[in-house]
């Protein structure tokens, strides 16, 4: 699968990912004699080093260059958000850097290829599955559906009208189709939220939040056993599918 980020420092690198899911300072954060991390576990040398964002002293740029001259630098860097210190270090040390990547979706040990000129991250051993999560709003309430016992994923949990996007389908069409199948409500989306990634075993789910406005009561099919109209705040106390809250936030609910 390929994830599109932002090209920051040019070049191509292929290596095994080392994830540090926090902000990182190269000055003090790594042993410059060995490449071992002092915060977190692992050695960054030759790895695809993925962390959220650079922080700390501007001397960190020189630390990256210093590691490179000792052959201890990472092969490539993946950031959620690039900033000046790490970008400077990456460019002067010729290390490809791509940002705009959801670090949560990566695991240490993943094989990764980044292209710092096109801004892509390729994860050849992982499969991408794009799903829609449709939320119907009626006044101040939203419609939550309870998944039936027959569902293989997340039975008995509360969520939106959701399902896999089919080949050639966009989030709008997929969400409208799923909503009609699962509730008999015929509506078109009023808002498509920014997508996000959820990591599974061998799989990364790309979730597209979709909002509908409708007054109709749902008629359920086999996929769900119950429904409720609740306020977005009340959904927090329910047994929901993973990261439903993220869907609601991205729809402004």
């Amino acid at each position, binding site marked *: 699968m390929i994830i599109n980020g932002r090209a920051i420092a040019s070049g191509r690198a292929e290596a095994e990912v080392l994830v540090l899911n926090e902000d990182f300072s190269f000055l003090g954060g790594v042993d410059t004699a060995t490449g071992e991390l002092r915060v977190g576990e692992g050695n960054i040398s030759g790895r695809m080093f993925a962390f959220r964002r650079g922080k700390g002293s501007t*001397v960190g740029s020189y630390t990256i260059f210093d590691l490179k001259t000792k052959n201890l630098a990472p092969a490539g860097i993946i950031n959620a958000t690039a900033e000046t210190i790490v970008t400077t270090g990456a460019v002067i040390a010729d290390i490809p850097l791509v940002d705009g990547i959801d670090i949560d979706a990566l695991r240490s040990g993943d094989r990764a290829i980044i292209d710092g000129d096109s801004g892509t991250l390729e994860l050849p051993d992982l499969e991408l599955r794009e799903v829609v999560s449709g939320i119907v709003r009626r006044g101040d309430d939203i419609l939550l559906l309870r998944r039936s016992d027959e569902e293989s994923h997340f039975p008995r949990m509360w969520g939106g009208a959701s399902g896999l996007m089919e080949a050639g389908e966009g989030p709008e069409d997929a969400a409208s189709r799923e909503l009609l199948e699962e509730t008999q409500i015929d509506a078109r989306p009023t808002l498509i939220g920014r997508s996000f990634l959820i990591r599974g075993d061998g799989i990364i789910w790309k979730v597209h939040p979709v909002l509908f406005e409708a007054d109709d009561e749902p008629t359920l099919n086999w996929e769900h056993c119950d429904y409720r109209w609740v306020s977005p705040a009340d959904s927090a106390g329910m047994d929901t599918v993973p990261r439903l809250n993220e869907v609601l936030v991205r729809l402004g609910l």
Partner: protein
Amino acid sequence: MNLSAAEQRILDGEEGEGARKALELVVALGKIYGAEDLVPITSAHLSGVSYKTIGDGGIVYLEHVSQGAKVRVPSTLNPSGMDSVRWREMGVSEEFAAKQLHIIDLYGSMGVETSCSCTPYLAGNVPRKGDHVAWAESSALSMVNSMVGARTNREGGPGALAAAIVGRTANYGLHLKENRSPTVVVEADIDGSLFSHSLLGQAVGSRIGNGIPYFRGIRPDWEEAKIMAAAMAASGAVAMFHVEDHTPESSEHSTEGLEVINIGDDELKDAHESLSVVEDVELIAFGCPHLSMREVREMAYYLEGKVKKSDVKVWFCTSRQVRDALPKEVATLERFGTVLADTCMVVTPVEGLYESSASDSAKACNYLPTLCSQKVRCDSFQTLMEVVM
């Protein structure tokens, strides 16, 4: 990003590997902040000079860069880790001195002016209003943004060097007029002393972070402005300020609807108490930012005929230009301490020499505890000099 034909040529390596690499860095930094293009600069001021701050990694980098690159615009250097001439008197080690002199030589080989000061705008590197420049050194860049009306972001050391090498920087942030508007009004009710301006900067910077304050109630001269700008950049990340009816761009922006904060004696007292934690000190240091000609003259005038009675060390930090220009005044100050050029109390290895120090500069008093492991006292020039007389 939109690059001109000339810029694309540099990026294609037609003007050498040094220029290509420098432009790559300028472009990469521009991408992070959404710059649409580059803008020509008229000067640069570079940080990353002190061996204490850049370390061996910095030396390796500069050795690499200096092989194939020269600066295209007038470029000056920030203070280094020692007085290039009087480092032995400061107690700096032979090893440190050798590495420090090597760093300065490397910059010199690229065509950078090698006197080291944080007040280049008082010593020949003076932009004009509207000029785009690439300056590092938080106090100096705030001064040229605010008091001159030149335009620069808060550049880092390598970014400013890269900009100097290609004569361009990325066009975003404070290079664009719409980002230079004030974000908060500060009603200042303070006495007109230099030290009050230092504390005012401390109080404002710690309240507004990286905002752009619009001051009412003060009319700072260059000396008052530089100590205030330095403090605001250290306690916050202020890169620009306006002073009503005083700074060159103050009339070009509206203050309508902005939050107003009031800073008076109580706020200055709080700022003072937050910085000043000890009474007795081993070192008293002035000149953060570097002392101007006028300050050196006024200090000499004040100290004329007085006698030092304590063994507390005193440093007066200034630029080489000022020290060379005022030999008589320097001789007066030397009866009380050492007049140092090219360096300052923050970037020199003070931690190996003293455990406690004092300054009238809120900027110095912010950094001395963290960068130099000092216990700090913050007070005015007169109050601190009375300690030694």
